[in-house]
């Protein structure tokens, strides 16, 4: 059964008064958004559930700070992105990426990238995603976040600015630098490939 449309304003008011039922409904309403963001930016060694909980605790404890100048979803997105970013910052060890560590599917993607100039077939999308995740793991958290938002989620520069609070110029510069680093690592993988 579909959840009836939630009157966010009224629900927020009740949550602020301490109504637990409204808090539960708000949690259910926001959970797809938070889950999506957390999954997209989840650090390797962090549990998804723990990070989701951390985001929600921040959202609920800061509800008094929400002034309603932006939609609630934007405000929550920003908290979620920043929580993930802080968690990524804690993850300092970045394992070196070697061709020998790639799975069979990933090796096929690399072969395809090296031999062909066309788009990768759709059935290799998952393998491509795995390689991109490994390349992203080589980057610092800020660069990783920008590439994920820009290229994997298809967000515009303005949307990234709104979610992260970084200026549009900073977003562009970070994306440019991150792409350079990713290219370097990818070319290394292509070079190590056995012909």
């Amino acid at each position, binding site marked *: 059964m579909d959840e009836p449309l939630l009157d966010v304003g009224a629900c927020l008011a009740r949550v602020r008064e301490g109504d637990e039922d409204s808090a539960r409904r708000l949690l259910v309403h926001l959970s797809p958004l938070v889950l999506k963001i957390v999954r997209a930016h989840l650090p390797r060694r962090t549990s998804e*559930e723990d990070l989701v*909980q951390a985001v929600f605790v921040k959202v*609920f404890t800061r509800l008094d700070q929400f002034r309603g100048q932006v939609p609630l979803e934007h405000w929550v997105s920003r908290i979620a992105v920043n929580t993930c970013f802080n968690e990524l910052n804690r993850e300092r060890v970045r394992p070196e990426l070697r061709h020998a560590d790639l799975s069979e599917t990933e090796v096929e993607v690399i072969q395809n990238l090296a031999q062909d100039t066309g788009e990768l077939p759709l059935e290799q999308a998952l393998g*491509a995603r795995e390689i*991109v995740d490994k390349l992203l793991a080589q980057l610092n958290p800020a660069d990783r976040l920008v590439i994920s938002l820009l290229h*994997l989620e298809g967000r515009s520069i303005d949307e990234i600015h709104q979610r992260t609070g970084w200026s549009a110029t900073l977003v562009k510069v970070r994306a440019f630098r991150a792409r350079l680093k*990713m290219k370097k690592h*990818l070319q290394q993988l292509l070079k190590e490939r056995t012909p």
Partner: protein
Amino acid sequence: MKTHPDSLDRLLRAAAQAPVRPLDTLSFATESRTLHAWRSARAGADLRPVLRLWHAGLATAFGVAALTISVSYFAGRQADLDSADPYTATAQQLTVAINSNWQP
């Protein structure tokens, strides 16, 4: 070896098309833990005025105690000074001198 300059773009475009794991709802455990954390935070917020009052009371008590100690210290000192006026001191010295050096 030849590497195509747009390899990264092709890789990223393909990765963006990767099927996304369907979004399930929050587990009951996460939901309960989150609501519990919210309740605890609220309880902490409710106690904040009481704690503030407690801190203010404690600070006032310390202030009053410090003031009392310093007032009694200075009062005692003043009493000592008063008792040690020049006449009394000279009289005491004379008494000691007379008692110790008196030769009939």
